[in-house]
């Protein structure tokens, strides 16, 4: 019998299985490119400077006033894990800020990567004694739709996705606007006299996968680049499909390297964890990159010229603060765009130091153009 080698293999498999139960084998978690759900009610335009409420249905949530002085109890359900240095850590920073600044009691629960375990976990959290339950990402709407109606006196905040429930307040991000600015920066840099530009009128973008939310970034970026120069060519590539697409830096590096050799001066990454590969490629090829979600400028100073920020922390904190003052309205969608610091470029010391003044001016002008509705940024959601 050949049983001995077989047994060794079986033991190896057991080890694999043990790891698998810890989450390594499971996709579906916190992708840092942090997509949002397609929402027919949210138009990708901005109006006033306060968070914009779209969707005119009447909020029928629990009584919003009277309990403002009481200590808020907040729970956030993370369908994945903290520590991504991006989307979830940003959301976590928002609720922690609610703890320090508003004295709210805060509890963050990490749900892990087993998709089928999220619903019972959220349900259990909803049964516990919390005033607001925060939930995020496009993977959760179905589950929120199933859980929220069973807890009519609890309030839910769903960020980066939308549902139509009377006790849920949604947060939506205008990532197409932020990406427009990234496109303006890219287009301007490609035409600038920075030392490492290729000289071609070409820029690139590497997306995680070919889905609406990523295309919301891509469409805005392309429009921004061509806003600077209508002849600007925008190379597009996608890492793959599904959750692994956001965790494959090697593939992203390959794609970005190809774009650089096709003449791109700068590549925008919209691929979560894969995006570090784009930054690597830019370093190796002596070109430029733009980060996403969180500030990645420091990853490679002078190479990563800026990052398109999605300020999950600000938005989450804002809504908690609204609840504290009794002004949070459920059954609505709060839109975070350029106007209310929901999205924007990371303008830190690296940006100041490495981006040509002309490009900074162009970015500032673009911001005003979006705010004044001189420019209407296209959406990746159809």
């Amino acid at each position, binding site marked *: *019998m050949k049983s001995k080698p077989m*047994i060794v293999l079986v033991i190896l498999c057991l080890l694999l299985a043990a790891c698998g139960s810890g989450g390594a084998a499971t*996709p579906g978690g916190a992708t840092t490119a942090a997509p949002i759900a397609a929402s027919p009610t949210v138009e990708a335009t901005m109006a006033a400077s306060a968070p914009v409420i779209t969707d005119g249905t009447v909020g029928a949530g629990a009584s919003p006033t009277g309990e403002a002085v009481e200590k808020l109890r907040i729970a956030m359900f993370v369908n994945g894990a903290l520590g991504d240095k991006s989307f979830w850590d940003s959301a976590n920073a928002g609720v922690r800020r609610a703890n320090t600044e508003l004295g709210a009691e805060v509890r963050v629960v990490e749900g892990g990567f087993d*998709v089928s375990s999220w619903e*019972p976990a959220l349900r259990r959290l909803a049964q516990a004694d919390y005033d607001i339950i925060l939930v995020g990402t496009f993977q959760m709407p179905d589950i929120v739709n199933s859980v929220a109606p069973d807890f009519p006196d609890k309030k839910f905040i769903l960020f980066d996705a939308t549902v139509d429930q009377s006790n849920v307040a949604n947060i939506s991000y205008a990532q197409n606007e932020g990406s427009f600015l990234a496109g303006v920066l890219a287009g301007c840099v490609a035409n600038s006299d920075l030392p490492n530009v290729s000289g071609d009128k070409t820029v690139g973008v590497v997306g995680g*996968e070919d889905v609406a939310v990523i295309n919301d970034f891509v469409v805005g970026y392309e429009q921004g680049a061509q806003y600077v120069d209508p002849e600007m060519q925008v190379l597009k590539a996608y890492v793959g*499909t599904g959750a692994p697409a956001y965790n494959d830096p090697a593939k992203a590096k390959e794609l970005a390297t190809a774009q650089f050799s096709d003449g791109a001066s700068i590549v925008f990454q919209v691929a979560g964890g894969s995006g570090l590969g784009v930054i690597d490629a830019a370093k190796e090829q002596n070109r430029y990159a733009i980060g996403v979600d969180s500030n990645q400028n420091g990853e490679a100073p002078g190479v990563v010229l800026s990052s398109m920020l999605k300020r999950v922390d600000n938005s989450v904190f804002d809504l908690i603060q609204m609840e504290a003052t009794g002004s949070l309205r459920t059954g609505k969608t709060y839109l975070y765009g350029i106007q209310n610091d929901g999205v924007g470029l990371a303008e830190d010391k690296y940006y100041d130091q490495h981006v040509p003044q002309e490009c900074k001016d162009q970015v500032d002008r673009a911001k005003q153009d979006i705010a004044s509705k001189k420019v209407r940024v296209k959406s990746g959601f159809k």
Partner: protein
Amino acid sequence: MRQRGLVAEVIPPVLSLVAALALSGLIIAALGSSPLPVYKALLLSPFESLATFSEVLVRMVPLLLSGLAVAVAFRCGVFNLGVEGQLYLGAFAAAWVGFALVGPGIVLIPAALLFGALVGAVYAFLPGVLRAYSGASEIVTTIMLNYVAINLTTYLVTGPFRAPNAATADSEPIAATAHLARFLPESRAHVGLFIALSLAVGLYILLYQTTIGYELRMTGANPRFAEYGGISVRRTVLIAMLLSGVLAGLLGAIEVLGVQYRFRSGFSPGYGFDGITVALLARVEPLAIPFAAFLFAVLRAGASIAAVDTEVSREVVDVLQAIIILFVTAEGLWSFVRRRHVVAAGQRG
């Protein structure tokens, strides 16, 4: 070996469990928390109410079916490590029936289950043929084919079968008539559990009461002896792989019809590999597999309760879960190895 006393069968796993709990208690204490609330959440909370207990039942179904799928191949000496890929294809096939066809549940549900089982079987047939006729190691081919299946289904729901307006790579929802009935109020426990349990009994009968079962076991115990005795080893290996694929395909189909209600790319947290542990824990005995799957399910349900109820971080709970499974399975593995040794010694002697 099945005549061994019940006490002798039960005591080692219980001792393993106690040892595992002691070790994990030390770890939790070293991290500055009290182990008792974690024990409670992990092992007792799943039983605290009908709602929590029903979640155990929900989680038990895929673990049970995966254990059976692995076991039927194991018994024939074949290592089907492709259950994961087969269940993905089965799940997609069942979902396709659910969203592409319309009809009453009495037609749709059997059609979806059968189609899922069929697709799973066909996908397992491939490595089965390679093993039987060219001697290609099914361990390698099944693992490789997992990637093909998982990525193929992801392609299908990001490309041709993506639900319109969906932000995620999911198929359209299946018809409501295709949902498996839920048998407890306000819970997700569905009748797939009874299908799975009857399959465990069915597999037992097949293995111990039929000619095919005898041939499977003989081939697993000693293929040369089986061949000498007039059993076609090739045919038997193929049958084992087909049965394994059927069970894997059904697993996927039942998850879709009972829990997910649509095909979600990447929905399985590695059920196909959990099945290996479940099967070994149950000493590859069909009637013991439901109990092993139940223990796993309690730990899984308990882990998500622990994440909500205790301050111990998710990673620590995962570590505890892994320690318990490792200890309990190591015991099962040891007796599995010992048994193989006896067989091997018998062959030599």
